């Protein structure tokens, strides 16, 4: 067992981090509000970076890495709340032509969860629907969908679809189940990145903002809040890494439990840390101008993708009960 990042993984993480810092800096986030949370040229650059073809075999033109590596990459994308249907396009890499190279933008929806709200519909070339019976391909231009005027996350536009068409079945139930687990794991990684970034923002602000003549970061009440944020981040990191490693090596544990644990813990870490980050920023934290709110809103979106905290908790409980039979 060597449950640590190796040299290649450290380099991979560093590469994606510096790309994101340069290409999607924090003060650029607001500009995505004008482009409906999508930027084609950024998408192509993400594809060139390997975000979508990361786990495709090298023989198919991919990078040939594992889910644990993808977790590291997605945590970095989460740190900068990079918008777009990142997880779905990554999952579609082996299923939809052009997804791996970024030429085809693929979104997705869990078809059995009402209301059916499709993210980034207007930017999509292909929409995937996950059902218990398999994976279905739908042409987004043929959808009858009503745009939501005010989506929660200003960088994640939404359409409401009242009658989702059946679409064309492109894979069976096993693949659908596999995509659910991988999707939950990558969403956990994005959430981990959010938990990390909001702690970083809180730290930075608390070191320079002064009250009562000294930095607020020197007050114990503030320090303890940020120590708790650190604990949440570290537990989420362990859980997300473990989910990735378990998907790569199913012999090391129960995949459902590892993924469920990661989704539950990282959702909470992201939600709590972005909430706490707003608190550290005081009144300014409650404004649109300070970018923390993008993080909190994205956390809400991601918490509701690939199984919520409650859904996964329920699943883990049933698994526990089954194990006692």
């Amino acid at each position, binding site marked *: *067992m*060597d*449950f*640590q*990042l*190796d040299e290649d*993984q450290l380099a991979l993480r560093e590469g994606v981090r510096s790309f994101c810092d340069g290409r999607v800096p924090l003060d650029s986030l607001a500009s995505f509000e004008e482009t409906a949370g999508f930027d084609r040229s950024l998408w192509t650059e993400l594809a060139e970076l390997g975000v979508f073809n990361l786990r495709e075999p090298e023989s198919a033109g991919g990078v040939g890495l594992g889910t*644990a590596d993808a977790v590291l990459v997605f945590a970095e994308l989460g740190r900068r709340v990079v918008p777009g249907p990142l997880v779905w396009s990554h999952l579609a890499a082996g299923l939809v032509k052009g997804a791996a190279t970024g030429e085809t933008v693929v979104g997705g929806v869990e078809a059995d969860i009402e209301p059916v709200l499709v993210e980034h519909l207007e930017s999509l070339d292909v929409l995937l629907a996950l059902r218990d019976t398999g994976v279905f391909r739908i042409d987004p231009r043929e959808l009858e969908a009503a745009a939501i005027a005010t989506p929660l996350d200003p960088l994640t536009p939404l359409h409401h679809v009242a009658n989702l068409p059946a679409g064309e079945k492109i894979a069976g139930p096993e693949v659908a189940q596999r995509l659910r687990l991988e999707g939950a794991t990558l969403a956990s990684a994005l959430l981990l990145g959010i938990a990390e970034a909001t*702690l970083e923002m809180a*730290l930075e602000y*608390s*070191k320079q903002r002064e009250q009562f003549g*000294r*930095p607020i*970061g*020197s007050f*114990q009440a*503030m*320090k*303890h809040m*940020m*120590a*708790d944020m*650190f*604990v949440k981040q*570290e*537990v*989420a*990191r*362990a*859980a997300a*890494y*473990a989910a*990735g*490693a*378990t998907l790569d*090596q199913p012999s*090391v*544990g129960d995949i459902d*439990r*590892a993924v*469920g*644990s*990661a989704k*539950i*813990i990282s959702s909470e870490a992201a939600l709590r840390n972005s909430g706490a980050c707003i608190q550290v920023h005081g009144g300014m934290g409650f404004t649109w101008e300070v970018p923390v709110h993008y993080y909190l809103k994205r956390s809400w979106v991601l918490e509701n993708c690939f199984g919520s*905290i*409650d859904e*996964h*908790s*329920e*699943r*883990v*409980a*049933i*698994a*526990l*009960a089954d*194990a*006692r039979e």
Partner: protein
Amino acid sequence: MDLRYSEKDEEFRADLRTWLEREVPAHGAPPPVNDWPARRAYDTGWQRKLFDAGYAGISWPKEYGGRDGSPTEQLVYYEEIARVNAPYIGVNFVGMLHGGPTLIAEGTPEQKKCHVPQILTGEQVWCQGFSEPGAGSDLAALATRAEVDGDHYVVSGHKIWCSFAQAADYCELLVRTDPEAKSRGITWLIMDMNSPGIEIRPLRTLAGEGEFSEVFLDNVRIPVSNRVGKENDGWRVKEVTFRFERGAAFASDMIHLKQFVSELVDLTRRAPEGPQGWNDRALRRQLGHFSAELDALWAMVKLSVCESSKTGIPGVGASAVKLFYTDLYQRITEFGVRLLGRAALSRDDVAGLPSERILARSMQALSLTIAAGTSQIQRNIISERILGLPREPRPAPPPRPAVES
């Protein structure tokens, strides 16, 4: 990021499992909690069996009788002893989990020879003498004085919260050797508990047990050769001790906690329709949630063990493990008490409900966020040493009282 145990680890697991399945039932049930001679005999007897079978001190060097095993063998060991509910480490806790490792890291060759193998065989039981009535979280305020007299330190003072003092042969003792300095005037000593001048007064905990004591020291003579590290360097040595204490020391307890959650599942399923029954969706989700948190915690331990295998000493991140673990422990045991309903009013099992176990655990849980550095101290460590936040300004010392003429 590889979570696979090696073939060698799995062979070790298979051997250990076979051995445990035979020996654990043979060792019998633990004695009553307040019968210290019986507890010592039971705990050290188990330690001896582990030693004879080659399972004591998995990560300790071979030259002292340890196994020199890998960190992953240590994890396998914890998983297996919890799986069969093996006897608790008990009176061997201080020696095995911090005294011994501290001596291995910092002791002289003679000290190692005198103590380390004997801790492993269960011949030596250790206790901890760090805290004082006026120096708990502010440990650097400790006042127990040690003055050199020839080749001895002469020690006087008052220690408190000394776990297992009633059963101990030796004590890891922090004393003040420089009254002017604060943390830089402290020294780490090995004290023989049979020395003249030591008085032990057991304290009764809120759970009604006597697991720790006050220890009064009146001119106790401790050979200078019993000093671990240099004089006035005890603050650094104690840091090594603490990291062991906060790191993997709780690993086996974490797995016991997983079993406890499974027992709560069984409890709720006995009356699925009742107010504390399995058919209550919120209750079910709460149990699933706890289990997910425990899985994440165990992954965190694996991360931290793999990390510390480079240095041999657990990192400061151990504070994060301790904070999360102790909080989770309290939330789970509180939930257990809620499941008991009115049966929680009885500390004995009543109406077929496991009150005794659940209440014992929930009361024990209250000590976890205090012992080995309170949660508040752990948060200070994280925020100052890991997150680099400024230290809180120390208040100016109080003015000296005016001398009345």
